[in-house]
């Protein structure tokens, strides 16, 4: 039964003495043992680490020592977030045996609050992708439909929570990589305001877009994780210089009178069942006393090309460090320095990563930089302005998370079609806005759908509050997938 609990409830039962940390860990690992072969959410499991931490927590509790806000809660970590002493492959061959020498700030914060880290999850290589199929190691399956992908790039972390291998997990979101798999796996998933959670220890893809975000079965669990992780970090220069926000009380206040902006024009191409689901979600919000207003986000039609120029430009330099010199893979065939570079990167990177490095190198090249990189920066500024204008007439904005529900493994081969999966999520990264993906129902063939609630910068609590209120009325998050053994 433990697996049906929220993170808040697991913590409550541990604190009250109803459950020991070791019971909690054993229970989740039993479930992992049973269903992980079907789901393939993890790249590595840290059983010994988790048991040692659980023992220590049980002893602390017995000795009546103070316990952290996350005491007893098992957490899975996306493989591009460093956990000291654990292998961080980023799902890439080039970092196959790379043991992280330091922990990400987010990991340090949750461990300091006594969370129990249980393993590292599969993702698209260096977080580049929308299906987790670009992992060099394995294909993660969607717990709702094992023929389908969980989405990506944080597909492992989303599938792990959906399969109840752990109540919460961490992912990273550069263009939708938390919100999209969250929606496709029927769980809550949050991308905070850019800079709200430190990027220190998150392996960089697109530095100006990357943001760590939590997954949970319910919005309260997201709120709990945000109270711990959402704070200033001196090791990340782009970290918001602001202490943690209070969530747990604030999000439970009613949202009556809240103005919800909807970019109806931008949603015209949405398929019928998804549109119907979105309209129902809007009715739910209206029933909670919210007022719908139309907002203009027409510039978002340029968000994909803008993103694929800026993200790849940054990525082409961020990934330059994987050169076979200091750590990670070094080609055995290489005899000269140039061959160390060429062969190592040829052998170590997958096709999608190579495609994005090439694209990013091209858009920064002399003679092309003005037409691509600089132009994209200008469009980014315009998109930010358009969001600001929209927020002058509403409190939050609502859109679907994805144009489609989860799709079959291997069904999307064209990279451009795959990029379109992020059409509703990518604009937030360009503007640094917070966005919650919250379950909004199912298609006829029982595939989860998600609602995206978007706030202005630093409107993290506001968005979480709206999502919590929505979830209390439209409680799709309670459904647990029935994984066929």
């Amino acid at each position: 039964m433990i697996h049906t609990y929220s993170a808040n409830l697991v913590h409550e039962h541990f604190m009250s003495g109803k459950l020991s940390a070791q019971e909690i860990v054993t229970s989740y690992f039993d479930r992992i043992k049973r269903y992980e072969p079907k789901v393939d959410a993890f790249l590595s499991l840290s059983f010994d680490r988790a048991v040692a931490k659980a023992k220590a927590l049980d002893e602390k509790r017995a000795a009546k020592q103070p316990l952290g806000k996350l005491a007893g809660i098992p957490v899975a970590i996306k493989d591009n977030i460093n956990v000291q002493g654990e292998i961080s492959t980023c799902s890439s061959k080039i970092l196959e045996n790379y043991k992280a020498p330091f922990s990400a700030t987010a990991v340090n914060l949750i461990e300091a609050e006594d969370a129990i880290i249980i393993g590292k999850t599969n993702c698209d290589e260096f977080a580049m992708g929308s299906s987790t199929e670009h992992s060099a190691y394995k294909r993660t399956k969607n717990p709702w439909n094992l023929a389908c992908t969980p989405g990506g790039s944080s597909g492992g972390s989303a599938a792990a929570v959906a399969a109840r291998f752990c109540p919460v997990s961490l992912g990273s979101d550069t263009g939708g990589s938390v919100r999209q798999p969250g929606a496709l796996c029927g769980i809550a998933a949050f991308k905070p305001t850019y800079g709200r959670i430190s990027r220190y220890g998150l392996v960089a893809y697109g530095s100006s877009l990357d943001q760590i975000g939590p997954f949970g079965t319910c919005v309260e669990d997201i709120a709990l994780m945000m109270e711990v992780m959402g704070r200033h970090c001196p090791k990340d220069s782009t970290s918001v210089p602001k202490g943690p926000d209070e969530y747990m009380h604030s999000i439970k206040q009613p949202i009556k009178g809240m103005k919800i902006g909807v970019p109806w024009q931008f949603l015209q191409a949405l398929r019928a069942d998804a549109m119907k689901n979105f309209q129902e979600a809007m009715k739910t919000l209206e029933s909670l006393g919210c007022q719908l207003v139309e907002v203009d986000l027409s510039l978002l039609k340029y968000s994909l090309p803008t993103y694929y120029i800026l993200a790849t430009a940054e990525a082409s330099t961020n990934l330059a460090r994987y050169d076979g010199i200091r750590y990670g893979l070094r080609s055995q065939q290489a005899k000269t320095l140039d061959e160390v570079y060429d062969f190592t990167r040829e052998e170590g990177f997958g096709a999608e990563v190579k495609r994005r490095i090439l694209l990013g190198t091209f858009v920064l090249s002399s003679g092309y930089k003005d037409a691509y990189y600089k132009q994209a920066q200008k469009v980014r500024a315009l998109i930010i302005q358009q969001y600001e204008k929209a927020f002058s007439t509403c409190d939050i904005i609502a859109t679907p998370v994805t144009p489609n529900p989860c799709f079959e493994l291997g069904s999307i081969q064209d990279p451009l079609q795959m990029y379109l999966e992020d059409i509703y999520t990518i604009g937030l990264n360009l503007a640094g806005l917070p966005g919650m993906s919250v379950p909004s129902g199912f298609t006829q063939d029982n595939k989860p759908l998600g609602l995206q609630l978007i706030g202005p910068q630093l409107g993290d609590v506001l968005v979480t509050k709206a999502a919590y209120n929505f979830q209390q009325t439209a409680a799709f998050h309670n459904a647990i997938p029935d994984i066929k053994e």
Partner: protein
Amino acid sequence: MNTKIHHGDWEPIIGLEIHAELNTKSKLFSSDANRFGAEPNTNISEVSTAQPGSLPVLNKEAVKKAVQFGLSIGAHINLVSQFDRKSYFYPDNPRNFQITQYETPIIIGGSVVAVVDGQEKEFQITRAHIEDDSGMLKHFTNFAGVDYNRAGVPLIEIVSEPCMHTPKDASAYAMAIKAILEYIDASDCNMEEGSLRFDVNVSVRKKGETGFRNKIEIKNMNSFSNLELAISHEIFRQIKAYEENPNVDPKEVITQATHRWDPDKGETVLMRKKEYADDYRYFPEPDLLPLVLSQSYVDDIRKTLPELPLQKEKRYVESLGLAVHQAFFLASDKKLADYFEACLETCSNAKLLTNWLIVEFPGRLKEKNLSLYQTAILPEHVAELVNLIDKGDIHGKIAKCVADEMVAAPGTTASSIVAKNPDYQPLNDKSAIEPLVDTVLAENQDSVDSVLSGRDRAFAYLVGQVMKATKGTASPQVVNELLKEKIAKIAAK
């Protein structure tokens, strides 16, 4: 002495890029120590080895030192500047991009004044920016290793206008920059350790020609004399090439390239041709916010700037009466200027002292390749020596002997050297000198006649003879007086 080099109707154009490592406690973007000479790969961190997930955080001390430098050269301080990524692959470059300031550097403009051949000249600076240093490649017999201790050490790169025309201009400019960096304690400026490095761009053109011809960049000069030699060599090489190919397009005669100075061969050696401009794919560093400074921050730094070399030089000229070139020489070397001022605490003859500091002692220490302040000869020792001379207790030749002994046994005081050697005792007693004067006059009747017929040189000869007879211990003043008296008497006869 005329040290000007003549280039006929050719005009050399020289510009300098100076890289100075800032002497901050920690590196530019991380907390690992900024220290030279440690065991390889001991001053490193996840940031300076570019571990996945590491992020840069700007060192405020480095920014402060850069602003101090900018204000010291009278530059404009950009209140908003920005860091950029400069991409190139090399093993000593851990991220395979350098973090530098390309589009908006922190320092724009400014100038320095240096003395060349006794003349003050002003040299303009284009810009200066903050960036991080690379590691160092070490080659062994069958492999190479990289030491990342230097990776991430803060640098400022100071780019001059192409405003210099002789090798001496370039070295004087570089000395002036070095002096400023030392005065504000921004850099150790140790050329042997590589904390001050020069890249120089050299081209030549016909006098009166507008526009520049192709330039050659020269790297790897780690002393002022090498800098001058390399430039000098390169100027003549280019002039010769143009003169030997009068009918060839100048662009073909000298093609843009990077050379390296080989001090053993005494020539510049081609490193690589620059057929295409390098494409470093600069773009703004997304891991760092723009560097925003407040006017009050800049003003506060301006208020606390120490006396700068040019101010010191002017003070030496105006209040101590030194010649401009002497004042520049002293002021250009912070440690020497400090030494000079320490001497002045117990010595009032600044002009005489200056001669000993910039001519006599450096001459004696040249072989050991040491500066006076690097020896155990203390400022009070030199001050005492000058005072002995000033009081007439010892005279020229003996003073030089005393100085020789001070250099031979550093730490010995001038007075103790004089006290121990009977030959160094001053002979000021007229009655003791008089018989020697008589003897010299008697033995040199010809010279006496010459003096009588108005030849001063003969008088100096006679002085010399008396000094010789006293082994240099007599006061030249007393000898002069006695000789004059006696010759006057002879004349009166």
